């Protein structure tokens, strides 16, 4: 089989639990039980070579945890993650991790304040031994800084000498310096001002075209996602509720939660469209509702939704987990 047609990354039925119990002594004294928080619950998705897959959802929906599971900052409690067809948890698969890098949300926290920019950008080159000499490292760092719109002299400075947007450029340069194929971007523009966000999004688009990168783009901002993504996955309370092509999702959303999210976006065009009032808030993830997690807020919920957890069904190019869609009530 042609490897190039395989997805670059596959996430298969992955779950992740966090132990949020009180310390052992408190549990003993207060007579409480161990408590697990299921941050990611049976998520499956695939990212194709050269595309941008975006994951969206409100805070606490588990999208950032998925990102951290993929790059190995957390280990999956269940399920597996395959990169280029190989299970990342398999022995020897550690080498595969070099082919992916991550860009973080907070440009003020993601760069070591005590390091010079040239050392920050050079770290992956040195650790992965991608250059034969220090001279080569310096040349590569200068090239990377130019590639992200900075100048080579910026390498001598410390991170606090840069603005938020410039720091995010440094972050991108560091991610690129290990020559990755796959970049996991966790809310890379949500801490930035909108004009700076435009600069970073344009840069990311250019880099993707120039270097043939594949992106997993995590964001809560649907407008940003609609601009940059080829396909979009929507998460709610740790579960993937819908995954579709961006063109379809923003025009013809299937899942009631996706519809609700799209309805809630402030309308810049001021077309005066009638907005469905959005009810309720995300429930406590420690105590998720039975059946479909969205049913307490869903205008289309019925007895089955309250009882039975919907499985993912294929609907054209999209997948969706909703009884109402399956029963064609929607």
């Amino acid at each position, binding site marked *: 089989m042609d490897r190039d047609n395989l997805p670059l990354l596959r996430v298969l039925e992955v779950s992740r639990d966090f132990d949020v119990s009180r310390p052992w002594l408190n549990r003993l004294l207060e007579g409480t039980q161990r408590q697990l928080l299921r941050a990611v619950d049976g998520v499956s998705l695939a990212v194709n070579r050269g595309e941008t897959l975006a994951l969206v959802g*409100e*805070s606490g929906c588990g999208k950032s945890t998925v990102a951290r599971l993929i790059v190995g900052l957390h280990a999956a409690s269940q399920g597996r993650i395959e990169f280029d067809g190989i299970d990342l948890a398999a022995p020897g698969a550690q080498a595969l991790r070099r082919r992916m890098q991550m860009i973080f949300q907070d440009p003020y926290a993601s760069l070591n304040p005590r390091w010079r920019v040239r050392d920050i950008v050079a770290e992956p080159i040195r650790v992965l031994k991608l250059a034969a000499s220090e001279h080569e490292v310096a040349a590569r760092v200068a090239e990377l800084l130019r590639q992200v719109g900075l100048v080579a002299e910026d390498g001598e400075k410390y991170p606090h000498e840069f*603005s*938020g*947007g*410039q720091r995010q450029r440094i972050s991108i340069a560091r991610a690129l310096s290990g020559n990755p194929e796959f970049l996991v971007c966790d809310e890379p523009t949500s801490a930035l*001002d*909108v*004009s*700076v*966000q*435009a*600069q970073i*999004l*344009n840069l990311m*688009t250019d880099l993707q075209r120039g270097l043939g990168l594949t992106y997993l783009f995590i964001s*809560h*901002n*649907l*407008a*940003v996602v*609609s*601009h*940059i*993504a*080829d*396909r*979009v996955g929507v998460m709610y309370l740790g579960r993937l509720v819908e995954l579709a*092509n*961006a*063109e379809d*999702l*923003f*025009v013809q959303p299937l899942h009631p939660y996706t519809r*609700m*999210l*799209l*309805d*809630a*976006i*402030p*309308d*810049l*065009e*001021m077309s005066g469209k009638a*907005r469905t*009032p*959005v009810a309720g*808030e*995300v429930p406590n993830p420690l105590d998720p509702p039975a059946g479909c997690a969205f049913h307490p807020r869903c205008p289309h919920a019925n007895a089955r939704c309250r009882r039975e957890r919907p499985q993912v069904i294929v609907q054209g190019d999209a997948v969706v987990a909703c009884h109402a869609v399956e029963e064609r009530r929607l």
Partner: protein
Amino acid sequence: MSGPLLEVKDLRVEFPTRRGTLVAVDGASLAIAPGEILGVVGESGAGKSLTGMAIIGLLEPPGRIAAGEIRLAGERIDGLPYEQMRRIRGRRIGAIFQDPLTSLNPLFTVGEQLTETILAHLEVTPAAARTRALALLAEVGIPAPQARIDHYPHQFSGGMRQRVVVALALCAEPRLIIADEPTTALDVSIQAQIIALLRRLAREHGTAVMLITHDMGVIAETADRVAVMYAGRIAEIGPVREVIHAPRHPYTAGLMGSIPKVGRGAGKKRGRLVQIEGAMPRLNAIPPGCAFNPRCPQRFARCAAERPELIAVGTTAAACWLYADGP
């Protein structure tokens, strides 16, 4: 009442430091009528929050109002002694800040905080204050206020907490509300709920609202008029529809173009966003003339030499030399 409820004229906020005086707000003038929502939008460091802080008299020292005047219902309120200003805050001006957690005291129940604020500003009995507190909680859309009033802030979710903060700001029926990034810490679905609440207050109670935010989408949904700030100055001010659909100032135009929009033709890379090169200047390096001129694609000689004041262009006004000889 005729005329604006709040009038700010040539406000100048300075921060004296030992390396010279930083001018954070420079000659800002604006007015808000009763029942009107004025949006103040700008990127970080534009001076929008400091303008709000100056109005409610909560500038952090050494920041100070160096020039200009602030009038509430025709009466000057800048430079009032602390005690007098404290009474105006809460009684006549309500404030809502970004983080609901820091606005509420975690050690007291929501009911205690509300009744205490009511008793401090209105002459009512404690029982009447509690009744009013219940009414306020219902007003801001907290379900079952009877059951919730004796809960502590940590027992509320983020969205509900921000509603409590709004209720707290409404205690004494202020005529003016200053809301500084009230929705920024909230998820989109809750954001929409808080926006609807602010709009209802303005429509039904004739409350004037100054809505400070970096989010043009929130402004578009909420405000009647909008002031766009850049480097401490108002670059453009006018009706929301005008400013968004026909921005006059090149900065506003760039800002609008740089916002990604949801809609048809999503995905498949709809090309590049409009990009304003560079970044907003630091306060210690604001260029002479028009503060935007080094980044402006339409600049000419005069822009670097002379600072433009707001020039009326139709129903809006823009501080830009492009409009010096009439629109």
